[in-house]
Each structure stands twice: as structure tokens, then as C-alpha cells.
């Protein structure tokens, strides 16, 4: 695979990811907010009438909101009909894949200017309803039919990783603590509080006090969801939308003097159910998708300065940092404990708080990762800016690894 024309991000926007503040809003309103921020972010101004096509990642507006045909609806509400509008559904990787397809649509010469984004309004359902809807992204017969849930699938991967490499729950806790710290610096994040800050206020309410984060995370206030994963190992249920404006290399200077190029893309699939995977401690689709993206971009894993990786559960970030080649297999957990993935570490992973703290409105996540890397490489990430970031990566996983998309970005 290759990109036969240059493609750059020239604008980006996203809503805050949250549940309560979006309680009265639907997908279309969230998407319009993100699209208008993207439009206004284009340095030289942008007329929405310049958009030639729209790609929208969305997992299940059908089940969450009783609304299908989502892409045309978004085109209508953003006011860009009659452009071609397409919805992409690849579970939690929906808008990461949408970004890849939008880049290919420009690289192919079909379009010069494309809007791509993602949206999910999950909180219209109860937590049980959300759990059941998310479970549709697993094998309904052979995984869910055996009693597995999403946390259950990732918990099984965690148990296998612990057994094979001696990694530990304390290493997962380090990832949660880091991502909450990063989220505390990100005004778009669902959770903007340090773990210790949450420990103090929850502890006070329950007449408990904690000397440090681990004492709190080991307590009854952080219950098991699926052993060895506890509540703070899981991302929250959030609503939100994210939108990017992409332009062909030849047209970029009309829009900005500070574009962020999509240097490489990759995508792969794998067996849906865990019983058919060649490995339980590594996602093959992550390895293959990142290999493709590195090759097209002409970079290697250790060239990456900043990465948004898919941490729906803390174990997912640990495995991603290994499968993307940032650390040798089995050393991702130790690297996290040693601070090597922190904001000022050798490779900053999830500086925006990741899915863990920023939130995970399923269909909006992949494009929100691209938004973060766009901001980081332009030096516009504010308090969670990674100093001197020049090459960035976004890694979006569908369900337990049956779909993975990757992009490599550069100036």
C-alpha cells in the first residue's frame, strides 16, 4: 500500500468527551459542534462549501439512539449536502478507519478536500444497555454467548500477559495514574482529575483515607470489573464527536502554513474471537497495521515522539506500546512504571489522557486521536503539550483487536 498524493490535516475540532454535559444533546448536535470548531481552526479561513466528501465513523447510533443513515444526517446538519457522505462502522476503530479511507480518497485523486470525523451518543441507554450494545462488537455467539463481556475479553488478555511475561496489575495502575494526570491537563477530557484527587474526595465520602494512589486503587472503592481488571483499569462511557478537515498536498497552502501531513497509514484485521488468535499477549493487527504505516512514512517506531494509542483498558495500552514497537515484548509495563511514556518521557503515550481519562465515545475515538496529534505537532496542545513533538502516531483498535488502524503524522 502507498499514498500516491500528499494528504494533510488543515483543521480539527472536537467536543469535550463527557456524559453529563451532553445529556440533552444528540449525535447531530455533537457532530456540528466539532465540525464548526474544525472549520474555525483553519488558519486562512475555511468555507464549508469547499468540502467534497464526508466520512463519518459511528459504531451504533442505531442501538444507542434509534437512528441509522448517520453520515447523510451529519452532512445535512453541517450544511454540506449534496456531498458524498459515507458511514464507516468498525466497532471502536470506526473513525480511525474513516481517517484512513478519507486519506485514500484524497490520495487517489478523487477529492481534494474531505471532512472526516466520528460521533457516538452512548448515554441515552443505561449502563446495562451500553454493555449489551458494545458486546455486539464481539462475536455474539462464541464470545458473548459464552458469557464474555468486553472487560472480560481484555481481562483474559491481561491474565495471559501476566502469565507469559510476569507483568502485573501494579504496572496497569501506573498507566491509569499517568493517563489521569494527562487528562487533568486537558480541557476536552472526560476526567480532569488526578487519581489522588479522586482518592481524597471518594475517601472522604466513605470515611477512608489513602497514603498514595496504589493504596486507593487496591481498596474496595476500586472494585473488580473482571479480574484482574478493576474499575480504574476501564475507560468511562462518554458522548462526543471529533472532526478533521483534510486537503490534498497541492491545495494545502490555501488553508494553512502549518499543515500536519498524514505520512503513512495502515490497517489490518484478525480473527474476531479470542479462541482463534495466534497470540493472547499481542494484537497481530496492531503489528501489521503499524508496520504498513511505518513503511509508507519511511520511519521506525523509535522515531515516534508522541502517540495516541487505544487504551480502552489499561492492559490495551501496555500491549499497544509493545506491539507498536516502542518497547520490546514484555517490557511495556515496566516502561510505564519507569515514566518512559509520560509527558516528558522518551515517547509520550496518550498525552491527552487516552481513552481512560479523555473518554471513549466509541465512533469518535479514532478521529479524536488524529485531532490530538494534529494539535501536538502544531505545538497547540496547551498544558499537555509534548515538547518538540515532530512525528506522531494514532492507533485505534476495534473491539478486542479484530480491526486496527494506524496513522503516522509529520510536519
Amino acid at each position, binding site marked *: 500500500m502507498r499514498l500516491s498524493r500528499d494528504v494533510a490535516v488543515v483543521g480539527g475540532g472536537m467536543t469535550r468527551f463527557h456524559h453529563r454535559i451532553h445529556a440533552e444533546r444528540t449525535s447531530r448536535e455533537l457532530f456540528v459542534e466539532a465540525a464548526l470548531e474544525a472549520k474555525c481552526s483553519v488558519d486562512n479561513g475555511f468555507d464549508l462549501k469547499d468540502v467534497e466528501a464526508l466520512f463519518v465513523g459511528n459504531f451504533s447510533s442505531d442501538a444507542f439512539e434509534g437512528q441509522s443513515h448517520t453520515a447523510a444526517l451529519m452532512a445535512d446538519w453541517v450544511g454540506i449536502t449534496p456531498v458524498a457522505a459515507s458511514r464507516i462502522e468498525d466497532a471502536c476503530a470506526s473513525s480511525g478507519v474513516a481517517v484512513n479511507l478519507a486519506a485514500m480518497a484524497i490520495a487517489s485523486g478523487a477529492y481534494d478536500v474531505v471532512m472526516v470525523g466520528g460521533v457516538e451518543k452512548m448515554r441515552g441507554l443505561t449502563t446495562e444497555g451500553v454493555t449489551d450494545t458494545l458486546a455486539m462488537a464481539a462475536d455474539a*455467539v*462464541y464470545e458473548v*454467548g459464552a458469557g464474555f*463481556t468486553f472487560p472480560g475479553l481484555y481481562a483474559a488478555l491481561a491474565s495471559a500477559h501476566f502469565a507469559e511475561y510476569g507483568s502485573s496489575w501494579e504496572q496497569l495502575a501506573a498507566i491509569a495514574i499517568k493517563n489521569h494526570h494527562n487528562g487533568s491537563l486537558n480541557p476536552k477530557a472526560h476526567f480532569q482529575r488526578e487519581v489522588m484527587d479522586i482518592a481524597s474526595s471518594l475517601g472522604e465520602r466513605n470515611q477512608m483515607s489513602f497514603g498514595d494512589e496504589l493504596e486507593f486503587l487496591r481498596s474496595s472503592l476500586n472494585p473488580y470489573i473482571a479480574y484482574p481488571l478493576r474499575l480504574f483499569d476501564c475507560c468511562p462511557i462518554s458522548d462526543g464527536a471529533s472532526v478533521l478537515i483534510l486537503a490534498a498536498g497541492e491545495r494545502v497552502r490555501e488553508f494553512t502554513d502549518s499543515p500536519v501531513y498524514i505520512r503513512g497509514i495502515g490497517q489490518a484485521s484478525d480473527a474476531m474471537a479470542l479462541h482463534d488468535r495466534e497470540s493472547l499477549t499481542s494484537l497481530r493487527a496492531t503489528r501489521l497495521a503499524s508496520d504498513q504505516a511505518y513503511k509508507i512514512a519511511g520511519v521506525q517506531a523509535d522515531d515516534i515522539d508522541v502517540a495516541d494509542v487505544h487504551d480502552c483498558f489499561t492492559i490495551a495500552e501496555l500491549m499497544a506500546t509493545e506491539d507498536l514497537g516502542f518497547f520490546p515484548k514484555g517490557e511495556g509495563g515496566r516502561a510505564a512504571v519507569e515514566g518512559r511514556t509520560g509527558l516528558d518521557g522518551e515517547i509520550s503515550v496518550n498525552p491527552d489522557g487516552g481513552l481512560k481519562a479523555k473518554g471513549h465515545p466509541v465512533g469518535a475515538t479514532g478521529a479524536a486521536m488524529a485531532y490530538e496529534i494534529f494539535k501536538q505537532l502544531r505545538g497547540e496542545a496547551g498544558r499537555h503539550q509534548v515538547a518538540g513533538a515532530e512525528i506522531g502516531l494514532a492507533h485505534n483498535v476495534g473491539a478486542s483487536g479484530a480491526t486496527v488502524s494506524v496513522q503516522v503524522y509529520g510536519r
Partner: protein
Amino acid sequence: MSVPRYWRETKYRYRLIGQMCAQCGSVMFPRSGVCSPCGSVDLEEVKLAETGHVVTWTVVRNPPAGYMEYAPYLVALVELDDGVRVLSQLVDIEPIKMKTGMRVEAAFRRVKVDGNSGIIEYGYKFRPLIE
């Protein structure tokens, strides 16, 4: 899960039947119509081993619809003695006693009750093997 969707797979869930490729000899579960290693469609149904060991496991505390009455419950990836892997609930064992590598055997049990229709669905679960 809707009842028709479940019943379509019932035979295979109830009797733990996989497929064997007549070309390359691979044994797979569930059967899919195509041999994933070699691409052959020359496949035969084959009865799988009913004993195996636990490869990895967890305890589900927030179950999907229809499984509430069992929670919290154990689920595992089991590797059967013929090398085929299946995901399954584990029964007749406390979570505290669970160990990776534990020997288990298939048992056929009620799996869930469909909340809307009340139809009881049966299938395999695994339990510790007493040798």
C-alpha cells in the same frame, strides 16, 4: 441474542462439534465453511475432545443480558486435548481456586434464559476434571 440466531448454532454449541479439513487435516472451531489455514472447502464435521486445560481466564461481574443470575462467574479460554480452543463459562469451582493450566472437562448445561421469550438455551460449559 435473538432466539433464532442462537438456535442456528445450537447443534454446534450443544455437542461441541468442529470441522476437519480433508485437504490439510486442520481441526477448527467453530466451523466456518472455509479452512482458514489452506482455503479448502472440503470439510467434515468432527466431534471435538471434551477434556482440555485453561489457557487464560477471568471473573465476569457485569454480565451481558441473560447471564445476570450467574454473576459473578468464571469464563475461560480452554484448549482442548485435540488442540482446538473454545471460550466458555467454568462451573463447579470458586474463583479463588482458579489456576491457569487447570484440567477441565465439558459439561452440558443451561446457558441462559432469554428474557423476552423465556426460552431456555443450553450449551457447553467446562468444569474441573477429577482424574
